[in-house]
């Protein structure tokens, strides 16, 4: 037997390589095609549109960085940005800590824990639009349920204008967001807690650790990757907050609850009686939202990885 008879011919090698490439490519093509057509191409178009002026009727014109320069001078944009920071920080803090604490309580063998989990999860299955409408009725300043309850309890002085008060409007929306999302994040933490070995708690108890110590030094470190996911979800949710706010306040009164999402929508499509879209300008706002979401997500994922606890 000669060496050449063992070595595959270059043609065969080429065919083998081709088959090796073609088969996976054939499987990947449909998904790749749809991703390119419906995500990549529109995203590139959106990035380009951010550098154009377009009202949807006349042809788009290239304006370079003008949309972004205008954003820097736009008071409503900065007000929206401030509101987004406020909303995102508050919802991220409360929508991480409160579900974590409740999940911990439910995980401690509390009687009726299943029923509580069900009750806490109920608001999650209701659409954001419906809860927005519901809470708009609850917050109605004259005959809304909240003020009626306060009055019936003899707390007339505690009644507020709620959504009509520019100082209270965002806290009111944050409260609704916490109520709505509590069950979802609680279930994530609860599920993750099931994976923590009981031995750790038992050993800690033998060593004299109390409830707080076990929570602080076992539960929290063991849930760090879960917390990272929850924080990232909350941060992204906060930065792109739109539907509930639009239904409850349409960003008002006078932009007091305007977020980047509602301002984007208003700028692109107009409000109830408005017109004159600035689609290029709106796209610039969308790009800002995208960039912020990306930056914060990367930072939080990196921080989460650094502090990962290995068993």
């Amino acid at each position, binding site marked *: 037997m000669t060496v050449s008879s063992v070595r595959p011919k270059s043609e065969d090698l080429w065919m083998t390589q081709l088959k090796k490439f073609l088969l996976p490519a054939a499987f990947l093509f449909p998904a790749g095609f749809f991703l390119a057509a419906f995500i990549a191409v529109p995203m590139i178009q959106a990035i380009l549109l951010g550098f154009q002026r377009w009202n949807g009727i006349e042809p788009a014109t290239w304006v370079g960085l003008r949309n972004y320069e205008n954003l820097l001078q736009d008071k409503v944009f900065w007000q929206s940005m401030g509101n987004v920071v406020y909303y995102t920080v508050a919802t991220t803090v409360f929508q991480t800590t409160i579900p974590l604490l409740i999940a911990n309580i439910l995980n401690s063998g509390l009687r009726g824990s299943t029923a509580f989990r069900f009750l806490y999860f109920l608001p999650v299955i209701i659409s954001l639009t419906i809860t927005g409408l519901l809470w708009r009725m609850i917050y109605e300043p004259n005959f809304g349920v909240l003020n009626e309850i306060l009055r019936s309890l003899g707390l007339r002085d505690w009644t507020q204008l709620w959504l009509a*008060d520019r100082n209270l409007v965002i806290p009111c929306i944050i409260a609704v967001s916490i109520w709505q999302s509590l069950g979802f994040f609680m279930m994530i933490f609860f599920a993750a807690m099931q994976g923590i070995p009981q031995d750790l708690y038992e050993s800690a108890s033998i060593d004299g650790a109390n409830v707080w110590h076990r929570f602080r030094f076992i539960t929290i470190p063991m849930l760090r990757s879960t917390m990272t996911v929850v924080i990232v979800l909350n941060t992204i949710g906060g930065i792109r907050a739109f539907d509930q706010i639009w239904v409850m306040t349409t960003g008002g009164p006078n932009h007091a609850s305007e977020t980047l999402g509602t301002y984007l929508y208003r700028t692109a499509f107009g409000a109830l009686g408005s017109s004159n879209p600035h689609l290029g300008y709106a796209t610039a706002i969308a790009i800002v939202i995208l960039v912020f979401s990306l930056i914060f997500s990367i930072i939080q994922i990196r921080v989460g990885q650094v502090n990962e606890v290995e068993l």
Partner: protein
Amino acid sequence: MKLLARVVLVSCLILTFATPALSQDDVVLRIMHWTSSMSSESEWWNAILDGFVEMHPGVTIENNFVPFPQYLPTLESMIAGEELPDVFFGHVKAAELGRGGLSVNYSEVMDEEFLGQFYEGPTRQFTFDGQIYAIPWTAQMFGIFVNPAIMEELGLEPAETWDDLIAMAPTINDAGYIPVAWGNSAMNVCPDFVLPIITQFGGDVWALDDLSDPDVSWDSEPVVQALALLQDLAMNGVFMPGINGVSEAQGAQIFYQGRSAMFYGGSWYPGIIVNEAPEELAANYYVAKNPALTADDIHWSGNGSGEGWVTKANSENTELALELVKYLMSPEIYSQHITETQNMPSMEAGLEFVENEIVREMTSWLTTDGANHILFGQGSWDGISGVCASILDGSITPEDGAAEIQANVLAARAR
């Protein structure tokens, strides 16, 4: 692999041949509007559309009802996607579409007799640079709906002037009622309220919306005075507390439930009150004109037309679409529309089919007290709606508010 390729090829062939072929005569006319009583479940509306189809064999009409809150974004998307329907309500896009050549200029294609049959206010609503870009399907007029039981209980009559209204507010509030209910959480009703007041103070809202006259600006005296009056009304308890947190529907419900003596609303409310208000109120309520500055002044109030048919220009279906518009506005068909909806007619010929006395009365104001309340100019609506909310809650002075409107409108136009 070969098998897979064969399957894909055969599937493509089957799909190709399975697609029904349209003959050249088949035409689909797409119409779009936000009137719920003209949805595909509406028998009278379907009968009207079927009548047109019978007259034009081979034509199919696709009727698209889009609820009002979603209408404008839908229309904006269709414009951007170059997918305009053939006949549709132009909303506040009527001017831009017409000026941009995307919709038919009715002044060029309809004769004077046809265009002259409409009330002046509704037609003026869609006239830009002397050209008419939409045909008013209905008209509208704002007024003050009155709960007679409360007013009688308190010994009050509807206010002739704004000062009268401010003067009676404490009496109504002390009795536990809200003087005038309406809601501004969507920030769309306040401009309806305040723009006619600018007219009352001698301002020209058309010119303000256009803003091409250097002598006209949003920070001018009539605007400041109108905003000051609005703030006076709000601060003197004429409206409910926290009006910016009350939706338009909640405002109406407050009136229906007998919690307010009056309600500020448009001429479409009589049709809603019949269905939603308690029978006693629905049977006895009446309507009053907006108060004026003095008893002798005109009671300027928002009029015009929201529902205006726009026809897509330069399409294969344009001629047919124009025929559809003419058909809809023909006496026989238009009378059916008014009879069924009891909406405010946009032409005098439609008035005889209005049975609702309140609508009839409000229609009579069109020619005497109608003022502009719909803005089409770049940034105008956003500018005034935001400041309006701040005026209502007292967080801005009328002077600063007027200056802010002007600055915001100019900024929007410079973008």
